[in-house]
């Protein structure tokens, strides 16, 4: 079902009717995903899929055009000495860097994601957030990663949070909207589940765990709760929503466990960069090292992989 077909049905859900989450049960389920042993061919396939799902990210106060150009080079040339590698899904930068990224990436099919809406705190008036978003889109961003107003959410002003997402969604135009819940500030898995439902009902194309600026960032537990919310939302509406864990996923093994969790929760339809992303800055190199290791049988050193 297309998004436009359901837009008219966007309605703030009754959060009190949303299923509860049992933390102990979630931990046990996650442990079971982690006990999956991914070897040989399935591992290589997974590693390449992970590369293709990465939103290569730099979100620092010290970012410069030079840094962003180098990051874009990395996005295009992950490791040219290994043939047959995919490119990453997107680069993720601040709105002021979108123009630089667009020029550096050209027309290679790598998306430009921009964090807008007064990232990372979201503590700004809606008008500022809308300008932030429109500017990023105007400069060439085709994906917007917005943050929800956690303070308002925790204070129970759900309507306000909902309306804000709805407004940003409209400001995005054709750009995809990823809604960052900043789960590390929500306190419990029940609240993560509720925020997920709220964001999807407000039109999120993706829901995303974290800004990467708050600890804990993405965890498998939080991601599982969000995947379960996506599954139930899909069952109820037929609309697919994407998922992006971000922050703290630095190693291949962990990323593979996320894929296992994705596969066993949402099934194959979600196993593409269109529906699943990793927000990460250092994951790519670890994946590349593992791919090289699988090919050669020799454990690798970080010295042989470019750090941009």
């Amino acid at each position, binding site marked *: 079902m297309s998004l436009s077909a359901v837009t008219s049905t966007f309605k703030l859900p009754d959060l009190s009717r949303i299923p509860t989450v049992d933390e102990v049960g979630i931990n046990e389920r996650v442990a079971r995903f982690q006990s999956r042993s991914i070897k040989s061919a399935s591992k290589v396939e997974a590693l390449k899929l992970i590369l293709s799902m990465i939103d290569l990210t730099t979100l620092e106060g010290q970012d410069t055009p030079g840094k962003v150009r180098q990051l874009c080079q990395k996005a295009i040339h992950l490791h040219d000495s290994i043939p047959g590698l995919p490119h990453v899904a997107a680069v993720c930068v601040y709105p002021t860097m979108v123009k630089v990224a667009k020029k550096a990436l050209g027309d290679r099919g790598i998306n430009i994601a921009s964090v807008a809406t007064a990232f990372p705190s979201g503590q700004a008036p809606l008008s500022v957030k809308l300008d932030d978003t429109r500017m990023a889109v105007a400069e060439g961003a085709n994906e917007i990663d917005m943050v929800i107003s956690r303070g308002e959410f925790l204070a129970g002003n759900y309507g306000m949070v909902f309306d804000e997402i709805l407004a940003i969604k409209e400001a995005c135009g054709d750009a995809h909207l990823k809604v960052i819940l900043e789960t590390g500030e929500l306190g419990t898995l029940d609240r993560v589940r509720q925020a997920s439902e709220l964001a999807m009902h407000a039109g999120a194309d993706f829901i995303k765990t974290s800004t990467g600026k708050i600890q804990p960032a993405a965890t498998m537990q939080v991601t599982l709760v969000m995947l379960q919310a996506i599954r139930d939302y899909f069952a109820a509406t037929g609309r697919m929503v994407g998922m992006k864990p971000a922050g703290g996923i630095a190693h291949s093994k962990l990323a593979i466990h996320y894929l296992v969790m994705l*596969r066993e929760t949402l*099934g194959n339809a979600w196993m593409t960069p269109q529906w699943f992303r990793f927000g990460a800055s250092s994951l790519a190199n670890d994946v590349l090292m593992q791919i090289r290791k699988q090919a050669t049988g020799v454990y690798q050193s970080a010295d042989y992989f470019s750090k941009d």
Partner: protein
Amino acid sequence: MATPENKLAFDGGWQYSPAPESTDHVKIKKTYELFIGGEFVAPVQGKYFDTINPATEEKLSKVALASAADVDKAVKAARKAFVGWSRLKPAERGKYIFRIARILQERSREFAVIESLDGGKPIRESRDVDVPLAAAHFFYYAGWADKLEYAFPGRAVKPLGVAGQIIPWNFPLLMAAWKIAPALACGNTVVLKPAETTPLTALKLAEVIADAGLPPGVVNIVTGAGETGAAIVNHPGFDKIAFTGSTDVGRIIQKALAGSNKKYTLELGGKAANIIFADAAIDEAVEGIVNGIFFNQGHVCCAGSRLLVQEPVADAVIRKLRDRMETLIVGDPLDKNTDIGAINSKQQLETIKSYLAIGQEEGSEMFQSSCAVPKRGYWCRPTIFTGVSQSNRVVQEEIFGPVLAIQTFRTFDEALIKANNTPYGLSGGVWTDKGSKIFKMTQSIRAGVVWANTFNKFDPTSPFGGNKESGVGREGGMHGLDAYLKLGG
């Protein structure tokens, strides 16, 4: 409500490559003798039987068949050893048992692999559940050896003497630990008979017991089938009989022991209700259903084999359960990704199959996951029956396989009445977000163990055992000591 096109797809796409656990570190002898008086000795009648791998139908080893004469030898060895063992300083007795725990931990992977080879259970379970729990059980009861006076205030405690212990094939090593650890800690000596389809880990445990330096005869292991078990039950030299197995055999044993003054504990069958209320954390409840009935191929006496789900969430629960079943991997027990291994024996597979036929004849709707199963070996896909009623045999009788009967209910009282409407009373499950409902239900279910918002949890510190036809006595925890002690004034 979901439309057909909203179905999730779990077939095709990215699949897990085989990830077999290595077996090259595992030593299985061609022949196993009886372990009597600290030595491996040939059976008096010179008879042996084969133990096979139910996943391949290949022979693993040849195992001695103990006759009544062998049981008699074992009883004599145990009686002889009892004198020294029961007089040993309790702290020293404890230290021997600690050693067993430690050696089991050191050799854990070897035990896990053999358990999976001999019994068909997935390595994930033998590695993460059976073996570590067995070691933990020895560790726990080792500590009790010199602390018994604190468990029975005001009473002087004495060991019983020689215990005859008969264990089933579903948790071979773990059941051996459940039986041996408390018996030894309390100062008894034992003669243990593992099940005929799964004797290997008990015999490996005999090696551990020898390596730990236990005095000869404190633990004796005799292998064989029903006749060997009967020889144990009917031997006058035992002071105590401990049995885990079917209710039918339990009944026979209780009758056989009538008038003998022998102490006994029986852990028998079950048909547990797993009750899901509409306010439960549904996704975790679905996981609990899966653990409740598909753990160890459903070869679990306390399995949650009856699902009672409240009507408002019944459709969602069944949909989620079916999706979850599609992700369960059935196959090679030694593959680290296998969720459901081989059915333990041909005979058991036939029993399960007969119930699948009965369920369909009774008019219930059967759903099985679509996964592929290997050609050789004994396999059963995870199965659910919907549209079943209390009067159906698949609801009333213990199937002991990965087969779940699903009923719906409307009110608390209806759930409770259905849950208790069985001759069994081993375990139960309740799922709700409301604490007071949990306590109301745990208070009202007539069962020895009730799990709330979880299922099939075991711990050495936690007593386990059944009400009604599910058995007599408790194993595990402080209450598990009772079965192996005489309480004096």
